[in-house]
């Protein structure tokens, strides 16, 4: 029976290896300088607008969301009554289980009529998806900070707010960073909400959140069935970039958490 369990574990891992192998093999022939510099309509074509679009969308969303998320987690963990904290935890956990397409649909119904089909709407959609991740992960990390640390600080005559910021958050800093990075990595790969809010474009867009933007997931999606080999190749190249980014961020995060366990 031990064998069957081992086989299941191997079966769980095979897809990862197959996927990584495929993406790398198919993407490498198309990794040239033009890919990073040119836009889809340039000759030769590239995916510069998607690369920088993804970074702009996700970065804007994380900048908007992480302060709110971290502060909300601080409130729930440091100030709220245990009952409120426990209920909000349940609500946020449940929200984490809501499919991103539903959040995308919400943005389509509420945000797009205001901001139009634009990068701004996409930022809102991605931000909403990131928010519960930031709150919950930060809350978990803050809870790991032992109460003896808070007591030590209070007993030194340090006010509560300084205790929270300079002692509790400092102790949990790498964990909070983890929360933010995880949310960023999750936001980078979101596709369905972008289809409903940003849609994509062939043009390069620098920081104009009022018009559409392109993103790596949108490029992968729309190029995925292309007959033209260069176009399909660029889908693979975009997938490689996205995958490398997502995996790298996750590996960084995990390495950090292993190294800096709160005492």
């Amino acid at each position, binding site marked *: 029976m*031990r064998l069957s*369990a*081992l086989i*299941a*574990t191997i*079966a*769980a*891992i095979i*897809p*990862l290896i*197959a996927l990584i192998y*495929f*993406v790398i093999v198919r993407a490498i022939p198309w990794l040239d300088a033009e890919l990073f510099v040119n836009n889809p309509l340039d000759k030769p074509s590239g995916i510069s607008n998607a690369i920088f679009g993804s970074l702009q969308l996700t970065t804007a969303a994380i900048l908007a969301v992480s*302060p*709110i*998320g*971290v*502060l*909300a987690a*601080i*409130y729930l963990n440091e*100030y709220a009554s245990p009952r409120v904290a426990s209920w*909000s935890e*349940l*609500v946020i*956990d*449940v*929200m984490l*289980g*809501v*499919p991103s*397409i*539903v959040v*995308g*649909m*919400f943005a389509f*119904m*509420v945000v797009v009529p205001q901001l139009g089909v634009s990068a701004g709407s996409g930022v809102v959609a991605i931000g909403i998806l990131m928010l*519960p991740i930031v*709150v919950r992960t930060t809350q978990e990390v803050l809870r790991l900070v032992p109460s003896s640390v808070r007591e030590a600080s209070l007993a030194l005559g340090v*006010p*509560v*707010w300084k205790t929270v910021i300079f002692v509790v958050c400092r102790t949990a800093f790498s964990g909070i960073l983890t929360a933010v990075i995880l949310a960023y990595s999750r936001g*980078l*790969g979101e*596709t*369905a909400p972008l289809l*409903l809010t940003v*849609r994509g474009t062939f043009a390069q867009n620098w920081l104009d959140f009022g018009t559409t933007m392109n993103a790596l*997931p949108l490029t992968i*999606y729309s190029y*995925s069935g292309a007959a033209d080999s260069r176009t399909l190749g660029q889908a693979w190249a975009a*997938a490689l970039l*996205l*995958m490398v980014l*997502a*995996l790298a961020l*996750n*590996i960084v995060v*995990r390495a950090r958490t292993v190294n800096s366990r709160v005492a």
Partner: protein
Amino acid sequence: MAFNITRSRSLLSPDRTFRAITLMAAVTTATILAIIFVVLALGSIPALTASSFVDFIGTNAGPIFGTVATALIAIAVAGPIGILAAVYLVEFAPKRLAVVLTFIVELIAAIPSVVFGLWAVNDLSIRLRDSVEWWIASTFGKFIPFLSEDSNNPAADSVFRAGFLVGIMIIPLVVALSREIIRAVPISLREGYIGMGATRWETIRHVVLPTARIGITGALMLALGRALGETIAVTMVIGGSNDVPGSLFQPGSTIATRIATTLPEANPDVKSVLIALGVILFFVSLGLSLAMRLAARQTAKITASVK
């Protein structure tokens, strides 16, 4: 008196200010979640009142069928593999190996679903068609039309392949959740049973898995919720047909894929139907997620009562 312990006189204490700021952030978060809930709940009203609920299900049987079918296939794939892998990681694997394997499995979860979709369209889907799908069709297809396939001319996309792909994608979730639950089974329980002369595997079958049953069921529910809502990868391999397919090996659609592909250009009537479908998806996944959390609390109580 050599000291001063009186309050400073300023009304605006940094303590209060900071607390108020964090409270505002918490309220903002709560408000956003509440708005989502209210908007979606209200959004379903037009479609659900226009016709009776039964009619609504009838006219949207295609995507509803596709959603359920892909999710169930996904659970059938990910459930056994995920739970067994979790058992291996907790009970059998040497510690270092367990750390490495867990790490690798968790990395799968970090790969964006659109990348899975690209891989499936260009490789996995074709392999599945020529192996698992072909085998099932040639073995059972003669008796069960629902599992039949024209082997000379198989469809380019199929509900089955979409479900299988989602299964692969949710394996890490099943592993991670089951692992936590199996690990939470107290050592004292296992030791008691091993002390009676049971083997490792007997202990797992008769002590560990039964104790963890509620929790693992909850984990599968959460995974089911994730599978129901998986959108982009499914869109890329399911084919997009709006009808209930005659066979699992033919193209179909799911609620999520319908929303992703048709919502932006939909006319008002279709739009309200799609939104109503989305709201169903929202409440179903909400319910599953809630069930999982409650199951997890239940398991925590059981294990706590033993400790």
